[in-house]
């Protein structure tokens, strides 16, 4: 097989990876363990949709079967979403296949013969290009790409009996999502950092997001150490990469690990009490001040401007 093999555990995630493959002019096949995704993707994939059928509901448990499929079909490129299970599947199968894994590629380009991936290193301070040799697995932050439109042809669907490695069992699952628009589609995003003093003060960010018709996000420590927002809501090199028109950073110092997630934002605004905070160098507009004083004024001013005052 020449072309790209896209790994999908949701239809939308798969469609976003198909966009990446199409950008490299590669014909696309897809693989999933989910019957609904397999059916849904036949409209978007040009070649084959492989449906792995086995005893697990977690795609990464099929890493061995997946590696077998790759060995068998020999795609030029394997694309996987840069998520926790995606990274696990990518690394386990890359080890079994003894092939390269390029993680978190922010850009993939081709000169017609060779593919070059760009990725961030040193916490987002630097980036580096890597030219791919043979078969390579690449993980991609899917939120940077639009979902592909339907393809001209309907893909063939192939069922593959697959053994799952279920030595790791899930004993319990708990949902931690927070209502509000998701970060991939929000046009405006308000981000909070450790400059926010109390959990209850999130209401301030919520109100600003409401005025902007946007979503609330945060830095990694706000999600991971404080647990104030779900971890899927933090932005940065290890979190979400956002593409909104507007990002307003409240009480965020602006370390490169955080600002690495803002590269595709159109306008970045920073409000921070420390004039030396690095966020101001990564922002288009900044106010040096106390967020507790500025944000209520900002909400009011946005509403006034909305109503043409």
């Amino acid at each position, binding site marked *: 097989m020449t072309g790209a093999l896209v790994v999908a555990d949701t239809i939308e995630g798969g469609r976003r990876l198909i966009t990446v493959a199409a950008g490299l002019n590669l014909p696309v096949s897809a693989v999933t363990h989910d019957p609904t995704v397999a059916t849904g993707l036949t409209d978007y994939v040009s070649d084959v949709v492989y449906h792995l059928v086995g005893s697990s509901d977690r795609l990464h448990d099929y890493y061995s079967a997946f590696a077998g499929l790759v060995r068998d079909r020999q795609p030029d490129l394997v694309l996987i979403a840069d*998520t*926790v299970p995606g990274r*696990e599947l990518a*690394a*386990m199968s*890359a*080890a*079994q296949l*003894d*092939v*390269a*894994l*390029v*993680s*978190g590629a922010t850009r993939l380009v081709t000169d017609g013969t060779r593919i070059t991936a760009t990725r*961030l*290193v*040193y*916490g*987002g*301070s*630097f*980036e*580096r*290009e*890597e030219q791919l040799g043979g078969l*390579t697995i690449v993980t991609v932050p899917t939120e940077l790409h639009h979902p592909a439109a339907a393809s001209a042809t309907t893909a063939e669907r192939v069922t593959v009996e697959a053994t799952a490695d279920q*030595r*790791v*069992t*899930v004993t319990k*699952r*708990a*949902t931690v*999502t927070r209502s509000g628009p998701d970060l991939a589609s929000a046009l*405006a995003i308000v981000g909070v950092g450790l400059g926010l003093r109390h959990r209850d003060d999130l209401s301030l960010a919520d109100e600003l997001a409401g005025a902007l*018709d946007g979503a609330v996000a945060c830095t990694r420590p706000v999600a*991971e*150490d404080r647990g104030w927002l*779900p971890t*899927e809501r933090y932005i940065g*090199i*290890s979190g979400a990469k956002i593409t909104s*028109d507007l990002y307003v950073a409240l009480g965020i110092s602006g370390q490169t690990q955080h600002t*690495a997630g*803002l590269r595709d934002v159109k306008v*970045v*605004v920073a409000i921070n009490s420390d004039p030396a905070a690095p966020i101001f*160098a990564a*922002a*288009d*507009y*900044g*106010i*040096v*001040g106390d967020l507790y*004083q500025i944000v209520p004024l900002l909400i009011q*001013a*946005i509403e006034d*401007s909305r109503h043409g005052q």
Partner: protein
Amino acid sequence: MNIVVCYKSALEETSMLVSSSGVDATRARHKISDYDRNAIAAGMGVATETDRVLALTFGGLEAKKTAKDVLSRGPDQVYAVIANDAASADGAATAKVLAAAIRSIGDVDLVVCGEGSSDSYAHQVGPRIAALLSMPVMSELSEFSVEGTAIKGKRTVGGVTEFLCADLPAVATVLPAAAEAPIPGLKAVLAAGKKPLTEMTLAELGLDATSLAPKTSAGPLTAVLASRKRILFPDGDASSQVAGLVGALVKEGVLR
């Protein structure tokens, strides 16, 4: 039980110099990769009195420089696989070397790695080691514990928290939340001087440099500079600053 914690000596990014000709790392300092400090603390955290915690690294000669810092964080011994061109090793090569070293140490029940290194941050060495050693892996755990012969872990996948369980031997990769990594005290630093550092070579592990050649060809590092307007509204009181900001946002067309 033997617990192996893997760590990397990485360049301190703030000590790398950026100029118009590129990034100069020749005078950069080495540190224990940030999250590997948490991995070491996490390994120490699950160890009982009778367990042995062994720290393992693969690197160039400079990898030995961080050994004392590692030992002062609690491990009983450091194993360092030293090779000249370790700096260019990719995740595939690093995992092969560490897996071979773990096999050679023998009787390892638990391998703990950081989620990703502060330089390459590729999230692949831990799961690759698991695949090479045929162990199950639990990656990116925010909490974990050992109960009898099982490992239990907690992690967040998208909007779902998963509680995981597997029998040992197993590989765990951990987020910083899994264990705080305080700066070691003076007593621990003094004790570290008496602990052994065992060097290993690739040949001793049955590996040769060609099987470890990088699988992609990596270009030079380039600095990432945000091309932002950097306009501050410094003058006047808060209300006029905010008015200036809102005016600018309207002009940008980002206020609807």
